[in-house]
């Protein structure tokens, strides 16, 4: 029971990270039908921005009273900066190709992914860099299991961001514009929606959430490196597909499920950690083959 609970908490923590990244994939796909390959690397960049901000503010040595506002500032600034990066990428690389054959923006996205990874590689080198964990330590003992307080914080931060996002999309004017653009771009334009601005906002939010995911990853694993985005991005994309690509709630659920699957395969099977990626990518292929709409997705017509 204790082991089960440990794996579950671990899975939910990983799942929170995957879900935050998966949201960006699913939002962008929902609105312009592009698999934003660079999104995994945007996640890594966000983690590095967070690390730099922590260093600038000197938060590792900050007194506890300043720690909480400090961490909030780090999250907000890193998410905004990363959001602007996402907007810039969309403006420079994807917008000119919006009406090009499908292959063109997809290949460009692979290129952007390599450019981001290349820049991080040049600036930060090939090695793992240690990341401070600013979340409170200690365990919460429940009798049948003891849960890390840091893990609880991670899951709560992620859930908070997801609920905020969902409210934003469902309740605000911009959120409604995003939904309308995803449904029918031309009709939305005729209704007076500024398409370019709406798509830019989508990239801003998606990349911002990825930054939150990157910082949380740093806190959870206390390490970061330039190539993190490829594997984690592909897993997060699996989560988005699993939940139903284009569906925000689906991506969140998919993220948690994939996180739990990874840690259960890794924990319960002999040498399972070597196989957990194989299991996840097999799930990706299976879902795409047998149920491309995922858990909650709607059928997307071939255009």
């Amino acid at each position, binding site marked *: 029971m204790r082991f089960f609970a440990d794996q579950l908490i671990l899975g939910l923590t990983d799942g929170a990270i995957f879900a935050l990244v998966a949201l960006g994939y699913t939002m962008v796909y929902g609105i312009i039908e592009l*698999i934003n390959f660079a999104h995994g690397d945007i996640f890594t960049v966000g983690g590095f921005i967070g690390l730099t901000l922590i260093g600038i503010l000197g938060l590792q040595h900050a007194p506890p009273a300043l720690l909480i506002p400090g961490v909030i500032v780090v999250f907000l600034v890193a998410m905004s900066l990363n959001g602007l990066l996402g907007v810039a990428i969309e403006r420079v690389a994807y917008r000119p190709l919006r009406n090009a054959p499908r292959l063109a923006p*997809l290949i460009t996205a692979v290129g952007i992914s390599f*450019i981001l990874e290349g820049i991080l590689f040049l600036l930060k080198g*090939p090695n793992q860099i240690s990341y401070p964990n600013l979340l409170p330590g200690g365990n919460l003992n429940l009798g049948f299991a003891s849960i890390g307080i840091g893990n609880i914080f991670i899951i709560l931060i992620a859930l908070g961001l997801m609920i905020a996002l969902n409210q934003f999309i469902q309740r605000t004017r911009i959120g409604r514009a995003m939904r309308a653009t995803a449904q029918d771009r031309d009709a939305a334009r005729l209704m007076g929606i500024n398409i370019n601005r709406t798509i830019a906002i989508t990239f801003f939010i998606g990349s911002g959430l990825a930054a939150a995911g990157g910082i949380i990853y740093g806190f959870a694993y206390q390490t970061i490196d330039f190539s993190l985005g490829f594997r984690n991005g592909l897993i997060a994309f699996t989560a988005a597909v699993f939940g139903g690509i284009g569906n925000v709630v689906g991506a969140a659920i998919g993220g948690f499920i994939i996180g739990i699957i990874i840690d259960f395969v890794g924990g319960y099977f002999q040498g399972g950690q070597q196989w957990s*990626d194989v299991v996840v*990518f097999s799930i*990706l292929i299976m879902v*795409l083959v047998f149920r491309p709409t995922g858990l909650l997705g709607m059928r997307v017509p071939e255009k």
Partner: protein
Amino acid sequence: MSQRTGTPPAVGNRKPSRLGRLGRAQNIPYLLLGIALLLFPILDSNRSQIDVAAFAGVWVLLALGLNIVVGYAGLLDLGYAAFFAIGSYAFAILASGQFNIHISFWILLFASAFIAAMFGVLLGAPTLRLRGDYLAIVTLGFGEIVPRVFRNLTPITGGVNGIVGVDQPKLPAVFGWSGNFGFNPIPYYYLILGVIVLCLFLINNLRNSRLGRAWMAIREDEVAAAATGINTVTTKLLAFALGASFSGFAGTYYASKLFIVSPESFSFQAVSVVVLVMVVLGGMGSMRGVIVGALLIYFIQSYVLIQLPGWIVSATTALNIDFLTKLDIGSYVQRSNFLIFGIILAGIMLLRPQGLLPSAQRKVELEGGTSDEAVADLGSA
């Protein structure tokens, strides 16, 4: 009216016989190039350069294979390394001390290409009906699964260490040459040259066949192609399988030339993207372009990026620019291949999507020039 009767001979000139075409002035550069390629190992006594050329051939072959999938059929395959790995491992398992099986290289060259093609069909059959961008992700996932499986199945594949001591090809002894390939790069060079020429003939004929035209129809508009009676799934599957078989060919050759196979040499970053960069840079759908792209990227990767730090160091010390020496630019240059690949992929797509050397047909399509049919109509009128 009399002007019109003058046109049929011009139409007749459009299709000269194959031999006639070979003698045309525009083909002389190609003939010279062919002679140069044949004589290269004889004129150049530097074995390491022949060795480089023999490895470059692997990448040309891979790029030609991926070009069928991406360039002709318009399917983005991001897991091309998987088939390369399957070809390599199929050969290494069946021709090494691993299980003490030693089947002849010449049989396995085709057998492992066939095995790779079968895996292509196995993956493609359920997934090729998916939308194009989903296919890219499925192949990417497959490309990640295969090397991990090879790394984890230690009893069969040797795990992380791979299989060391893969067999070399043998031929009957001729002209005082023992027929053993061993570590001599010259026979390897001729072998890969021969395989590439064979593949070029194959692709050239396929491209102009019914199948080749069906590929391009699907690339341009899949719905319209299906409406004209093309079985799109079978046609795409053939492209996929054929591309995979090229990769299998290349894998067998690569394993035997390198003497070992290991799971690390088949990652997304090391193979799949590199081959994609070659195809995109040279020009998707252009055989000439793809070959040039492959050679260019291979040259940058295996020569420029390795030599450049040394050049910079000697240049900065010669010019006595101290602060540049301290900056250690060399280590940055060696780490810049990801950045270079990314810039090529995004830059080409944004600025010159047809690539450096686009095929004539593709160029005409993109520029919207007159089609052959219009000329033929004029002639028959």
